[in-house]
């Protein structure tokens, strides 16, 4: 209780510095928070895309359909594969004219069907990753009758890369602000110690334990971190609501992420204070 009381008094002594410390933690975690929301939504998009990852193998013209039928059975036996559908040349043309109605004139005027037949391979659950798609594609390419295999690799890769960039960016930016926050909290705690120099010297003289002397400053760091974390959570939520309403629909991050963020902020504040206290208390002599 004494520690909390004195930590609050510490804020009161240097409100600007305390505010700056809280603000810097809030900014660093706000950045992390924004990236977390972005990352979470990219993840969701990815899992949506993943369920649609399919491998399409285009079949050469004038191939024995029986041969293709055998291949279909073989491919369906791959562990990564859920289902294989054969789309004939005629069916491909029909689908194209249905889906691309603006070109229906072109399609009806054709004398030769330019579209190839294809095998559409649906991947099984748990195999809808770029790696699995690539493995399946490579095996299918081995068939003589296959002209070309496509599986939207680039798009999937790009999404995965985006996710990595998002994660890395969050760490880098959030990390540099966190370092700033640690330094600011250190200064705030150092100022608080300086303001209480005489008291600390007397505590040391009469035999107060180190832990007793340190505790209020550590609590000050912890509270600074926690308040910064709360502010960051509010800012992030606000930003999420604004984007969600105006730009594009988003989903809020799981609650436990917020809890982890708050705990992290509190620990960061306490770690910064510990570092400053350790250095500064040694400098205060009894006499």
């Amino acid at each position, binding site marked *: 209780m004494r520690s909390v009381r004195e930590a609050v008094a510490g804020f009161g002594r240097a409100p600007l510095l305390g505010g700056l410390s809280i603000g810097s933690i809030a900014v660093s975690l706000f950045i992390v928070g924004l990236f977390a929301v972005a990352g979470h939504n990219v993840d969701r998009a990815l899992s949506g895309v993943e369920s649609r990852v399919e491998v399409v193998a285009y079949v050469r013209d004038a191939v024995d359909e029986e041969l293709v039928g055998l291949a279909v059975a073989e491919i369906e036996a791959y562990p990564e594969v859920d289902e294989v559908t054969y789309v004939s040349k005629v069916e491909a043309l029909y689908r194209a004219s249905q889906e691309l109605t603006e070109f229906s004139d072109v399609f009806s005027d054709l004398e030769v069907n330019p579209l190839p037949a294809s095998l559409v391979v649906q991947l099984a659950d748990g195999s809808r990753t770029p790696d699995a798609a690539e493995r399946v594609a490579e095996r299918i390419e081995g068939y003589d009758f296959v002209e070309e295999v496509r599986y939207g690799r680039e798009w999937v890769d790009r999404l995965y890369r985006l996710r990595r960039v998002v994660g890395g960016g969050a760490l880098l930016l959030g990390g540099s602000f966190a370092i700033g926050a640690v330094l600011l909290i250190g200064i705030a705690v150092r100022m608080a110690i300086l303001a209480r120099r*005489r008291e600390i010297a007397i505590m040391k003289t*009469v*035999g*107060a334990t*180190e832990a007793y002397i340190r505790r209020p400053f550590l609590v000050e760091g912890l509270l600074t971190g926690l308040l910064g974390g709360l502010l960051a959570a509010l800012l992030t939520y606000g930003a999420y609501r604004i984007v969600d309403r105006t730009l594009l629909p988003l989903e809020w991050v799981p609650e436990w992420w917020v809890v982890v963020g708050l705990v992290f902020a509190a620990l960061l504040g306490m770690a910064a204070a510990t570092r400053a206290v350790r250095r500064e208390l040694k400098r205060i002599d*009894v*006499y």
Partner: protein
Amino acid sequence: MIKLNSVAKAYGRSARALDDVSLHVAKGEMVFLTGASGAGKTTVLRLVHMQTKPTQGEVRVSRFSSSRIRRRELPELRRRVGFVFQDFRLLENLTAAENVAFALECTGTPRAKAGPRVQKLLAQVGLAARARSYPRELSGGEQQRVAIARALATEPLVLLADEPTGNLDERASSGVFDLFRRINASGTTLVMATHDAELIRRNPDVRVIELENGAVVFDSATAAP
């Protein structure tokens, strides 16, 4: 109770504050530590309070040794060795009673028990009536008494005082000194650094250790009568 064995203390590279000092203060003894400014009086007190370690030799206080004591044992030593400063070092924003209570609280006495203890300590130094006064409302002598009450809060075995009467007029000085006498009479070992020759002359029964340039040049306990 206090033992210095061939103690040398150098600050920095060249300045030698103490050079090969050996002395022994027995339990319950009262000692004047005297000498000119810079002779090493304060250094001896700081070494006994283990605020600093000797460059050479060993300082022993009760069961603590300067060569073996660990950082986390310091608080325990400090509770056994009270310290009184020339400039009192009271906290200006606290009353006399709160200054004494501060020492009790930060050494782990529960609040409920601290109250009666504070009253007792202030009565012991003759300031029961000034408990609610702030330091600025007290005379120098009274402030020093509060500081002494604070030093006694942890019931120390040894009380160290560095020029405790240095800032006081003669009347206040003798009052504070009488208080030290009483504290010593109750069994507390007392080492008082002073360069007040008059005070020493008026108290011939108190042992005198004189330092000069960091060495003991006179000790009434070993000198021929």
